């Protein structure tokens, strides 16, 4: 099971320059707030797709059962 720290590192490594705040009570459900320059000009859907794209097929809904996501362009 990934920890909040691991999920944070994955997001920040996956989107260069991004800052992520990730919390989790159970290492299965995660809350993430991600601020990244790369989000600028993207629709919310595409901003979320960028983050989801970091995780492997089946990982979201699998080991990461739920990732509540808030994105914001820097």
């Amino acid at each position, binding site marked *: 099971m990934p920890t909040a720290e691991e999920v944070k590192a994955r997001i920040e490594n996956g989107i260069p320059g991004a800052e992520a705040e990730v919390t989790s009570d159970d290492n299965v459900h995660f809350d993430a707030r991600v601020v990244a320059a790369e989000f600028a000009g993207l629709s*919310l*859907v595409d901003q*979320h*797709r960028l983050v*989801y794209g970091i*995780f492997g097929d089946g990982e*979201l*809904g699998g080991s990461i059962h*739920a*990732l*509540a*996501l*808030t994105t914001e362009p820097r």
Partner: protein
Amino acid sequence: MTDQPENPLRDALADAITSNEVILFMKGTPEQPMCGFSARTCAALTATETEFAAVDVLADPRIRQELSSLSNWPTIPQLFVRGELVGGADIVGQMYESGELAAVLGAPATAGGEALPETAEPGTAPPLQIENRLG
């Protein structure tokens, strides 16, 4: 994932998305959501007085798989308005709070996150509360 030339389920999903102005793919039904994210998304739609079609992805595991490959979106729920993916629970919730959701839905101007007006005009949308079991 294999791409088969014939894919009736995917065709049915694509058709449902284009032929329903507002369609929500969710876990469970609006009356009985089976997941908190789906429940929240339904609540936002209901709060904007929007009629929407709902598809229970739990009815058949292939729905979710085909839907995600069609929409390039990994999670459920997924809200489509006029054929476009609006987002999942987080985006719908955020847009509800900002008032954007009502704008996108063309719903009567209800300020986001505030108390709803006493009388709700159903607007111009036809009644479309359908239970759609695809596949």
